[in-house]
């Protein structure tokens, strides 16, 4: 078990020493994942609500697809985005490969289905409760979307956090489209993968602990907010 105590010591050392490359890597990880989640929410919330409220041809198929995409392997998404952004691919002219932007794109693709699928479920259930009253007040499904999203905000925040968890934890997509370039596209997960490949297991584990603490802090913060506003969730 020496690895675990070594790992803890390594992690502590990095954090206490405010290791500059650590802060750079943590900063980039947060920037990439938080941006991706924000964009994914901007897309996933209205799309999920629309699927929930409207009847259209192929709806069943779309629902099943979105649910299935929640489980898309990150490395597959990374490969697809690489092929799209490569100079040899359709969007190569933008030169986005091996930049944080490419990483954000890949993570948006990973996270949007999660948010859309969970939003769909939440909004569907809310509409069952509210439909008659809202229609009576003059709000059909289209007009009701913002009110429904706001009403479901507590559950939807949990969905968004789930998306953030997925984004900050994955390594397959960001490795392929980012290239793990030192000081440019190296994030927590790719650093951990790199240290493992160098055999620096203690350091890798230490970085892993830091990542866990970061993720736990964000989740704790969100839960605190939800808890303190519990009365509004009745």
């Amino acid at each position, binding site marked *: 078990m020496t690895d675990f105590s070594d790992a803890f010591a390594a992690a502590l050392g990095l954090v206490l020493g405010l290791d500059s490359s650590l802060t750079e890597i943590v900063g980039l990880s*947060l*920037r990439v994942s*938080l*941006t991706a989640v*924000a*964009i994914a929410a901007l897309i996933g919330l209205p799309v999920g609500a629309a699927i929930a409220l409207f009847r259209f041809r192929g709806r069943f198929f779309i629902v099943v697809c979105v649910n299935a995409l929640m489980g898309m392997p990150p490395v597959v998404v990374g490969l697809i985005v690489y092929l799209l952004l*490569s*100079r*040899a*691919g359709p969007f*190569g002219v933008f*030169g986005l*490969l*091996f*930049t*944080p*932007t490419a990483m*954000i794109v890949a993570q948006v693709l990973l996270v949007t289905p999660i948010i859309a699928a969970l939003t769909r479920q939440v909004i569907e259930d809310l509409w069952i409760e509210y439909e008659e009253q809202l229609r009576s007040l003059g709000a059909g499904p289209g007009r009701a979307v913002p009110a429904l999203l*706001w009403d479901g905000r507590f559950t939807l925040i949990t969905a968004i956090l789930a998306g953030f968890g997925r984004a900050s934890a994955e390594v397959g997509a960001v490795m392929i489209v980012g*290239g*793990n*370039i*030192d000081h*440019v596209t190296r994030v927590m997960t790719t650093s951990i993968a790199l240290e*493992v*490949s*160098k*055999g*620096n*297991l203690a350091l890798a584990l230490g970085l892993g602990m830091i990542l866990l603490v970061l993720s736990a802090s964000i989740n704790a913060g969100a839960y605190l907010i939800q808890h303190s506003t519990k009365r509004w969730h009745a």
Partner: protein
Amino acid sequence: MKRVTIMALVAAVMALMPGPAAAAEKFFTLVGTTSTDNSGLYGKILPTFTAKTGIKVRVVSVGTGRAINIAKNGDADVLLVHHRTSEDKFVADGYGVKRHDVMYNDFIIVGPENDPANIWGLKSVVDGLAQIAATKNFFVSRGDDSGTHKKELSIWKLTGINAVKASGTWYREAGAGMGATLNTASAMPAYTLSDRGTWLKFENRGGLKLVAENDPLLLNPYGVILINPKRHPHVKAGMGQAFIDWITGPEGQAAIKAYRIKGRQAFFPNAK
């Protein structure tokens, strides 16, 4: 309350948006192999290049097969790998301008401490591998189409034994980089072919030790190639060529020679 929340969210997103494009920053992209990067060479010598020219080098490290793939697509500017046949084909097919010698190091065989196949002291690596196969001791292969992998397969060919056929039994294909493969070999424990640079830096040796070296077959030459701007007009040919000139020139070669891992010289410059 709702408006404040929305404004706060928008502000947060904007603060996190990627900063202004690095167009102001001078850089080019070098695609190379994990074995070179993991040895720590780039970390040591590239800053010298940047200090001299002001050009930053963005290093993408993958297996040789993937590196060549990335280079063919034009997603990088300079290619630096260690598989002569692939490199020559790359230039011949018009993807690269010219192949230059840079340096070489060597491969070694590492294996379990107690050396169950008894290959310590054998001069011929071909004999060594043949003996591992005959005694059916575990051997872990990179299995990832890398330069190391291709070298390993070429030695198997000389033994006349089809190791790949035994895949899953004593012959295990990791499909991974050098470090990951060494991790696997260390845990089993098993024999494996490794480049000396990665081995010297490797921290997780477990029960592994060096069992065979110095066979001329184990020489591992590296070549550097500028990706052809005629093929991919966006390639940063100026900066890429500056790098190639530097690394094959006296300064770069000296820097390579000076690089030590645990007191030992890891790479041997051989540019002409």
